[in-house]
């Protein structure tokens, strides 16, 4: 306890305290809260000196009080300097704690694949379009050189839509003379003649849409997605089709996976091809997932003259190629996602969706 102290004495004690304390703060390794308690707290020397203020004559108190405040501010500023320095105290800072992350959402794999495929084709001038999912039989089959009852239609397990057109033939809407049967498009090829009908040549299109087929098992879902490429111009060759394929494969699958093109048959292309990609799982040696090292990706071909005619294009002047592949299948071949059941994609279980 400080007794009978003069104002001058008290001021010098205060200034001395300030110097000692500031030095102490600078060199201390104690946590800043502890130092603060020690130098400014109620049991501190400063607190004692402040109490001594009341023993001074009244006329001196405000003058010395100013000094008390200055000392206090000075010590606080030293403390705050200390606080801004990196502190290695476990009580206040743990760098191993998980960081605060931005929100994380997830796009469906199919959307991710669609975006990636769109970007790749965009770079060679193939622009994404979208044609109907519920369409006239004309666009899905007839205009593609597949008349009613053609056996080639068996390749597609097609869903039919109940006609909205009145039953009576006499009432049939003339505008829809060839448009009286509706289907859920089993492929994106319905976009071919629809794109030609835009009357803009040349054509470089990527039509991406939902498709529907009447089947469900580990490798089929009744709804799925396809992307359809169509190129119509003068002097289109098989070499161009191969060029576009190779461009896509290089960018989508990366180097090391090779493709091959085999003869096939589709009513709406001539010649027709089947495109295979070397198996990513066995690197071409042949395994359970593939056929002798090859995975069937999908179909392609040079547009059949009858299809060009159906789209109002003269096949003597123009030619073209087309290809149409499943998004799900194409993507699963890429990633080796080890997804063994395609139906999982449409389970919509967020515990699955959040993995991608």
């Amino acid at each position, binding site marked *: 306890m400080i007794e009978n102290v003069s104002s001058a004495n008290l001021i010098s004690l205060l200034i001395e305290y300030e110097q000692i304390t500031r030095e102490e703060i600078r060199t201390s390794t104690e946590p800043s809260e502890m130092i603060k308690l020690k130098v400014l707290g109620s049991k501190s020397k400063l607190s004692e000196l402040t109490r001594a203020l009341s023993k001074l004559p009244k006329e001196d108190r405000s003058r010395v009080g100013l000094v008390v405040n200055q000392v206090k501010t000075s010590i606080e500023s030293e403390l705050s300097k200390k606080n801004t320095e990196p502190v290695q105290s476990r009580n206040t800072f743990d760098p191993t704690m998980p960081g605060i992350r931005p929100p994380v959402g997830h796009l*469906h794999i199919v959307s991710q694949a669609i975006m990636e495929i769109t970007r790749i084709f965009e770079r060679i001038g193939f622009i994404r379009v979208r044609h109907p999912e519920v369409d006239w039989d004309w666009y899905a089959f007839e205009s593609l050189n597949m008349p009613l009852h053609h056996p080639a239609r068996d*390749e597609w397990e097609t869903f039919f839509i109940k006609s*909205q057109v009145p039953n009576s033939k006499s009432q049939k809407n003339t505008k829809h003379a060839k448009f009286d049967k509706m289907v859920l498009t089993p492929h994106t090829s319905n976009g071919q003649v629809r794109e030609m009908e835009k009357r803009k040549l040349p054509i470089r299109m990527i039509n991406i849409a939902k498709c529907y087929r009447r089947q469900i098992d580990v490798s089929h879902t009744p709804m799925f997605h396809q992307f359809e490429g169509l190129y119509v111009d003068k002097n289109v060759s*098989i070499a161009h089709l191969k*060029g576009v394929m190779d461009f896509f494969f290089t960018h989508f699958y990366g180097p090391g996976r090779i493709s091959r093109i085999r*003869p096939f048959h589709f009513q709406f292309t*001539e*010649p027709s091809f089947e495109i295979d990609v070397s198996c990513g799982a066995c690197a071409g040696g042949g395994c359970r997932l593939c056929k002798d090292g090859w995975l069937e990706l999908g179909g392609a071909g*040079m547009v059949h003259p009858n299809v060009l005619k159906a789209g109002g294009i003269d096949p003597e002047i123009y030619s073209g190629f087309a290809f149409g592949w499943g998004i799900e299948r194409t993507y699963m071949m890429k990633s080796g996602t080890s997804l063994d059941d395609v139906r999982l994609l449409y389970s*919509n279980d967020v515990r699955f969706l959040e993995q991608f």
Partner: protein
Amino acid sequence: MNILIPDMWLREFLKTDAKPSDIARCLSLCGPSIERVHGKGNTTVYDIEITGNRPDAMSVSGIARESVAILPRFGFKAQFINDPYILKPIFPNIPDTLPLFLKTDPTLNPRWTSVVFDGVKVGPSDKKIQKYLELSGLRTISNVVDITNYLMHAYGQPAHVFDYDKISGHTMTLRASKKGEILTTLDGKKHTLPGGDIVIEDKTGTLIDLCGIMGGENSSVTNNSKRVILFLQTYNPVSIRRTSMALAQRTEAATLFEKGLDTELVLPVFSIGMRMMGSAAGGRVAGPVTDIYPERKKTRTVVVSKNKILAYIGPIKDTDITTPLESLGFTVRMREERVEVRVPSWRDDVAIDVDIIEEIARIYGYHTIQSALPASAPPNTPIDPMLMWEENIKIRLRDWGYTELLTYSMIAQNEGSAYKILNPLSSDWVYMRTSLKQSVLPVVHENLKNTKDLKVFELSHVYVHKHNDLPKETLHLIVVWSGNRFLEAKGLAEALFDLFGIKYNLPDFGTLEVSSDITVLYLDFAKMVELAQPRKAYTPIPKYPPAIEDLSFEVTGDFRIGPLMDTVKTLHPLIYRVTFLDAYQNFRTIRIEYLDTTKNLSDDVIRKVRQKILDAVREKFSVTLKNV
């Protein structure tokens, strides 16, 4: 369709130095795709996919012919042997001891061949035929029936045998069926015919054959049969297909006949069948051979321009055009600017110039054509704003922490005028949805069993009814949260409206519903895209800083902050921005930014505006400033 062909059997038609693995590799690149090779040595079997346009290749001899055209391209020797088309059968005139009375209709049945055998001994086939058939995945039944399967598999021409004694009046009349007629096929299935099907009746009018699909049970050859009719035909493919589909009776014969078979092949195969009936079943020919073929098949010539060939394939030599075609049986005449090609009778699939180009190109080898990107200028196609916005918003929602769902477009229940699927796969998928809620909400509830915290969305089509027309496929957006997240949902909606540059107006574009366990935001996305005004106008950055102050009001009861803020915003030109800060007990704090773009604001001016605010809110909302 896939067929199995044993290597040993193939080599009865093909002389080659190529190993099975070579044959598989080369044919896959240039012809039918050999998907797998099973077994080894004598039991090697090729599993081959043959496309529907090539019924001529759906047989052992057909594959041999393809091999002969393809293998030399890869440096192998290959020679076609036992080509049935080389046979020019002559049948001895044998007295008609077992007469058969026939009548047919050439529009349904372009060619009819038949002959009756006596003294047939039904028993097992010899080991070789049994082995061939078994390796080919066909059942062995008896020597007589096995001959028919052997012929079909070796040459692609189905054959049938009848028991002569079971045919009443020994009369066979081929005709179109009448609707409702009944026939039991030899697999024991009873069919009620749709009408217009090709059938054969006996003298009593009883149907004994469902032509081209399966024989009748009542006329079939059994172990006791002695007198047997060998019977090879071709039929109208459309009619066969219609019947086979309508009755769901899909036999190998039907899948061949419906593709259109070569009438010129019937007689050579018939003659081979006759020989086998004698050697394998002891049959003695008991009458003359009947061959009803009123209209011979015409040969077809297709002309291709050389320029077109070069445009499709690239620069190739003349011999690259002639050799492949000739080895496939085409006759080629090279002219100055064009190639004239006579198509063999078995290649009905080749009708126009590009068909010829395909034959040249595939044998030349697609793998040998150098790939090249198109050199012409890309078309000038604008981006579809719907697709652009769809992708944009999906990415934003992902980055804001939402997970995308992708549900089926088909739903179980019709709610209104939904389009109906005539042949649904399951009762869960019968209608095309008119709202995303129909498919998304069940999925959400399923997920809530596993997680408490859910933030999901789907941006997909719904199918809106249009009179006498296709549906309008239009994009809707649904966002679902677990629990009551009203303000989050409203905030998301506000943010979306902002992005589209549309003044916030939920009722015009959608709904926001909070139920006991979920919050659902539903928006007509397509409408927002149509009305989007995303262009952002530049306003100069203020030279003078705004003055900012927070005002806390004491409110009562069911006070609403929205109208108050709207009022304050428009109260005075110096009020630049009003934002909501905080709600605590019965206090609401808003932040006012005052701004004069021309000068610094004085305390005096601000005081006056503030007073105006306080007066207005007291008067209109009975709200006073919190006592400090």
